[in-house]
């Protein structure tokens, strides 16, 4: 490897470290989503004793009784609930994550420009 290559690799490592510091770990949608996106949590026994989210629909007492007996319950179609949160926690359904995508894109574009210029300069110097 040429000497310029070694110094370039050092510059590259520094740039990658800077990216890691620049982009905070705020991308997981379930971690950064506002309450309005997640829905209000409610305590509801789904047979596995966890805190679950709103959106359940118990139509009547008979159905509730049947649901309890079989361990099943009914949710309104197309709504966010404990079974569909993976679906609504995708980037297309989370507009609050889009500015972060734009921010990352701009950081990457700027870094690409810097790396291209630095590597060109180092190559010419060598």
């Amino acid at each position: 490897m040429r000497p310029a290559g070694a110094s370039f690799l050092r510059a590259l490592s520094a740039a990658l470290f800077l990216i890691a510091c620049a982009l905070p770990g705020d991308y997981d949608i379930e971690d950064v989503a506002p309450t309005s996106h997640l829905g209000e949590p409610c305590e509801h026994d789904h047979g596995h004793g966890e805190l679950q989210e709103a959106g359940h629909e118990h139509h009547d007492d008979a159905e509730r009784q049947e649901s309890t007996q079989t361990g099943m319950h009914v949710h309104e179609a197309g709504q966010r609930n404990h079974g569909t949160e993976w679906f609504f926690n995708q980037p297309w359904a989370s507009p609050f994550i889009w500015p972060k995508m734009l921010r990352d894109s701009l950081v990457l574009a700027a870094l690409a420009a810097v790396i291209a210029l630095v590597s060109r300069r180092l190559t010419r110097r060598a």
Partner: protein
Amino acid sequence: MRTIRAFADMTMKMLLRRRTIYGISIVILLALLGISRVPSFDVGNEGRFILDFGMFGLEIGALLLAIGLAANLYPRDRESRVLLPLLAVPLSRAHYLLGRFAGAALVQMASLVAGCLGLVAVLAINGYAVPPALIPAALLLVVEGWFLLSVVFFFGFWTSPPLNAPLTVLLFIISQMSVREFVSLLPAASGAMKVIRLLLPHMDAFHIKDPIAHGETVPLLYFAVAAFYGLCYTAFILTVGLAVFRSRDLR
């Protein structure tokens, strides 16, 4: 720019003369035909299954195309001693990389568009409606394919072709994971895992098959944001690849 265009044209012609592109395209189309024969088990809206599996097949096709088209380009140029004369006079290293990438990207795009048209034909033949969002979703798949292509080029400059494919597949898999899932692979080194994950792309940004298959509306703005993200990541990986290529002593 004219140099890059001419070299991209040469690359495209070279790739079209190989059998790889036809083999992978035929596999994609056969998979789509097979998907259309998957029984619905009396579940309503069978078209949903065809769309879901079909778009997943196209995504895997983009990965196979990236590896099949680009993993051998640089090593073959180097072994056949074509690279040094090329770089000696007509091309700079940046021209070489951009020309090769542009040629391979165009061939990959043509194959993915053919696959998407195949999916549309399968839906139409089976009597299902073709969702209008399929066209922007296919364009997003093309951007994802270009990103994977840039990853293959990047690995190509410092690994052998047999190692390039598994590394690209590994990156494809781990880039689908959320930060939390990735860190949970090695909780003892959570800090290092977090840093590594932050350097990797969030490929779930390209996942658009679920809302389309379930009839959810995806705003056009999202397609634009995700495509911009993919293109910026592609540019970043290509630049890092170029920097590695520039640091290589080819003698």
